[in-house]
């Protein structure tokens, strides 16, 4: 829908950028969809097995005594989905797809806003159910007929519809029957999903449940309640006489925080996608998630915005592509683009560090520049791969420390590392201190996990690191053997102590013991522990350099947090106030540029009226207001105008004033007041 091309010339590769952006987003989108599918799989499987069980019991043994005696309840699944209502849509869509594939073609999704009464609910329900096998050519004509007759929206007509439909499946051609019965059982249940249980009115739900429980023998109904808060809401909405008609089972979806962690893990902490988020930007997105909405969908939308914004605003983002394409793209860069590279702050920093000969070459020779750029970009790629692996290793350590000085989640660690040199922070220092006090079993398991992470990573530099870590592990094993010997040595000294009863000697030996313990404090294990921690520290210093320090990071990392915040954290009050208080901000008219708190008469009428009303109290006298308005407006016009006319307000000014005031009323700043005649009441607070 959008193209980045603003002008006709394509020196900044806008077309290519657009294509790259699109393909990247499509990849990421399909990836997120796959992740979500995987995450929901467990829940959906449970639900499917519940639904297929729900009516099977009754069909088998209706003649048995206990079944005759038992009250037949409506099977109900209470689906607790968490407060992130925006994500529910996707879950429900997946759910109804899965149900239609596996269990029943009859699925109806109901929303509270469509069902203010039982009548509307039944209409909606029947409309959805009766259209759901529209693909059946035979059914088509029937449907048209039925709708022409204006079906009666009542349970009996629903039941007769159900009977006719299930009968039709039975009498269909054998090939088709086999097909359908393999997927759906003989009499498939009718599933009704209440998307937002909380918003339904009590009466509608109660009546619907009472009605359908009377017909449960003829119509195998299954209800699914989508619950955002807690299952207690069922008891709050339904009295016992109604809830006793239901057979409720609880299903819980994955918490949205875990969902986000998986998304971050799979989308950001991977080298599959060339595009990366900078620390501040990621922080903005995570903050919106944690502070405001808990919505994973919104997080992904924000991520998409970052991608679009990056490719749109950064001409060099054409190089933000997969490793294989870099060479080709670098060498086809135009002259303008080369200049763009030279202008990048990180590149300038890089140039300054080189010796003079190379500096000149970089700044004048385009081909050399391109070679160098390609090399640097590849370095950047390698850096990122290593970064992710070492970050995971560090996370193994920090996540098991008491009080989590560097955060429990890997995303917190990631943000900390992106932002600045993590080893210079206090938190890092304290976590190293804590790591030096870890016990052996923990340390060994951590090292083993680090080895696993590094082995599975794609980086090639880690062979030596892995070897080193393995060496540590064998040393720990050796220690165990030595430890048993040491214990033998320490025993005789204890015996000596018991022998000597002389007070002086006792004191002396005790002091000695203490001394030796202090000096011996560094046992072999402790020495080794220090070594390990120091080694980890060195790895961190080498690989977890913040991305801002890397040359050409601007190409791959999106760092415009302020832009993103402006887009996502809308502040309507502030914007409105700015527009009315300082129209120059939006209108960009030089004449409107005013200094200080003065009221310019060139500003639009509404701005003048707004500024004047800020000076008033809760009730505003309209006559005074008009006076003030006309004074401001007349100020610029001839000051030596008729004294007589200044008494009487000009009709045009009066009309302008009335219009401005009604505009303010429309915006919700004031409203007419009944307390005093010719007064209006202010509705805003703290504006002045």
């Amino acid at each position: 829908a959008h193209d980045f091309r603003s002008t006709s010339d394509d020196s900044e590769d806008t077309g290519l950028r657009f294509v790259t952006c699109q393909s990247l987003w499509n990849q990421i989108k399909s990836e997120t969809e796959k992740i979500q599918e995987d995450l929901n799989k467990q829940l959906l499987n449970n639900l499917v097995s519940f639904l297929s069980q729900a009516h099977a019991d009754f069909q088998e043994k209706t003649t048995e005594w206990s079944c005759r005696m038992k009250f037949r309840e409506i099977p109900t699944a209470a689906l607790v989905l968490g407060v992130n209502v925006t994500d529910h849509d996707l879950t429900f869509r997946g759910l109804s797809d899965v149900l239609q594939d596996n269990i029943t073609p009859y699925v109806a999704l109901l929303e509270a806003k469509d069902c203010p009464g039982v009548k509307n609910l039944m209409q909606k329900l029947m409309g959805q159910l009766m259209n759901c096998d529209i693909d059946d050519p035979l059914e088509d004509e029937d449907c048209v007929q039925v709708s022409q007759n204006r079906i009666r929206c009542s349970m009996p007509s629903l039941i007769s519809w159900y009977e006719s439909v299930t009968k039709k499946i039975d009498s269909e051609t054998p090939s088709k029957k086999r097909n359908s019965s393999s997927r759906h059982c003989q009499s498939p249940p009718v599933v009704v999903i209440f998307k937002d249980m909380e918003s339904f009115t009590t009466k509608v739900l109660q009546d619907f449940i009472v009605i359908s429980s009377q017909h449960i023998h003829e119509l195998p109904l299954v209800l699914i309640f989508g619950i955002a808060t807690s299952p207690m809401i069922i008891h709050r909405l339904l009295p016992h006489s109604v809830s006793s008609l239901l057979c409720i089972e609880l299903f819980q979806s994955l918490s949205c925080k875990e969902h986000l962690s998986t998304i971050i893990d799979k989308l950001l902490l991977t080298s599959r996608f060339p595009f990366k988020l900078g620390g501040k930007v990621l922080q903005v997105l995570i903050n919106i998630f944690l502070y405001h909405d808990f919505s994973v969908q919104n997080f992904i939308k924000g991520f998409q915005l970052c991608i679009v914004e990056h490719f749109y605003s950064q001409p060099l983002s054409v190089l933000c592509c997969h490793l294989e394409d870099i060479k080709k793209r670098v060498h086809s860069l135009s002259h303008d683009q080369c200049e763009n590279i030279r202008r990048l702050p990180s590149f300038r920093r890089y140039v300054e560090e080189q010796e003079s000969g190379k500096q000149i070459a970089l700044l004048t020779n385009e081909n050399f520049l391109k070679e160098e750029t390609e090399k640097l970009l590849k370095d950047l790629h390698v850096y990122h791969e290593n970064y992710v692996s070492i970050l995971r290793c560090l996370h193994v350590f920090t996540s098991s420390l008491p009080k989590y000085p560097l955060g429990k989640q890997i995303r917190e660690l990631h943000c900390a590392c992106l932002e600045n040199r993590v080893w210079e922070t206090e938190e890092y220092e304290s976590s190293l201190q804590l790591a030096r006090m870890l016990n052996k079993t923990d340390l060994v398991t951590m090292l083993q996990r680090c080895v696993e992470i590094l082995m599975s990573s794609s980086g090639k530099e880690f062979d030596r690191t892995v070897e080193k870590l393995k060496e540590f592990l064998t040393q720990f094993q050796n220690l165990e053997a030595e430890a048993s010997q040491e214990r033998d040595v320490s025993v005789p000294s204890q015996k000596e102590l018991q022998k000597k009863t002389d007070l002086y000697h006792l004191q002396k030996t005790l002091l000695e013991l203490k001394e030796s313990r202090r000096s011996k404090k560094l046992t072999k294990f402790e020495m080794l522990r220090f070594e390990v921690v120091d080694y980890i520290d060195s790895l961190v210093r080498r690989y977890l350099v913040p991305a801002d320090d890397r040359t050409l990071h601007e190409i791959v990392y999106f760092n415009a947090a302020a832009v993103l915040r402006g887009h996502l954290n809308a502040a309507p009050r502030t914007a409105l106030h700015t527009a009315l208080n300082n129209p120059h901000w939006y209108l960009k008219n030089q004449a409107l540029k005013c200094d200080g708190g003065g009221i310019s008469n060139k500003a639009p009428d509404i701005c003048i009226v707004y500024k004047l009303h800020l000076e008033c109290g809760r009730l505003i006298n309209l006559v005074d207001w008009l006076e003030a308005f006309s004074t401001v407006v007349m100020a610029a016009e001839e000051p030596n105008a008729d004294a007589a006319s200044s008494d009487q307000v000009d009709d045009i000014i009066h009309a302008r004033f009335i219009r401005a005031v009604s505009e303010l009323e429309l915006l919700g700043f004031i409203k007419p007041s009944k307390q005093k005649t010719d007064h209006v009441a202010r509705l805003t607070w703290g504006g002045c």
Partner: protein
Amino acid sequence: MPNLEHPAYPAADLLRLESLVPCRESQVSTLLSIFGERQQLSFPSIFIYGHTSSGKTYVMQTLLTTLQLPHVFVNCVEHFTSRLLLEEILIQLQRCSSGTEQASPVHCDTLNDFVRLFKQAVASPGLQDQTLYIVLDRAEQLREMEANILPAFLRLQELTDRNVTVVLLSEIVWELYRPNIGCFEPFTMYFPDYSIGHLQKILSQNHPPEYSADFYAAYINILLGVFYMVCRDLKELRHLAALNFAKYCEPVVRGEANERDTRKLWKNIEPHLKKAMQTVYLREISSSQWERLQHDGGEPGQLKGLSAHTHVELPYYSKFLLIAAYLASYNPVRTDKRFFLKHHGKIRKTNFMKKHEKTSNHLLGPKPFPLDRLLAILYSIVDNRVAPTANIFSQITSLVTLQLLSMVGQNDQLDGPRYKCTVSLDFIRAIAR
């Protein structure tokens, strides 16, 4: 000795009827004497009321079908508009008169149409010289339909000039029905609750074929001993009896006790039933889950009930908004300055504080508060600065849709909307942690 006697109906039918409606013989005989013989005109309308599951619907249905009286049985909850209700009566009437299942669709929008069509339908030979009974179950719904429906049904005999009796079944007393303008007074009849003896008798009637009646009666006795205090609903009790019977039989099946060993059986079942009272009866866990547990012999403790999942995870600012809303709902406005301002000055101890000491604000329930007050409290309880972004406002709305806050008097959005906090102190404590 048959209690029911009526010259118009064959004695065999009456005897069968009596066996089908235990503990309701007196009501049935009263009804029969009101109904009179088939061709006799009966009272125009009869109003029957009684508590939930006191057998109103069941007795009426059994009476009418056993004696093969022509009747129409309609549930008013199910037919929620007057049009649906009237059409349903006419459709059933067609079936009644022609005896076939197929009924042509009828269109009937008003009561006038209904009377006309009703006369046509009753004219058929099958119905001509018999009283027709129209039973309206859950008649309390009639009050919510158009104002003319209820009075018209009460004097339907007069309006149609046909031999028809309308029976209303309801759970509430007649006084709550009487319209302002007055109406024909129906014959009212009360169905009392079943006593424990009645329940015992009725429940024991349907014993499973594998076991003797005495054995089952002993089981019902134990069951009632546990549940009678909390539940007198016959349907519910029967359901519970069926659910737990397998557990009761367990010692017998295993051969550890015989059917007469009541004490042993009681020891086995009693704790189990108590547990059932806390879980299944309250629908904390579903009956199918309960059965599965029984089958596997597991402890119900493993399965958490619905109310165990009370914790709700909320975003950071939503938590603070909710806490602020709670404070605004339960604290009087005059204390705001003292609680939320840094320099509130000296606390004056005045008399009016003491006056209200006794009545806790929690007993009075939440009070409505304007949006501005909510935001002001929010700003003072959150440590860092909060920008009034659209996100904050949309969070308030989403809290309303989640039913954690509720909007009061939503007619004027501009006039500063007012809210109420609807969550409990425990909930606030949980999220404030």
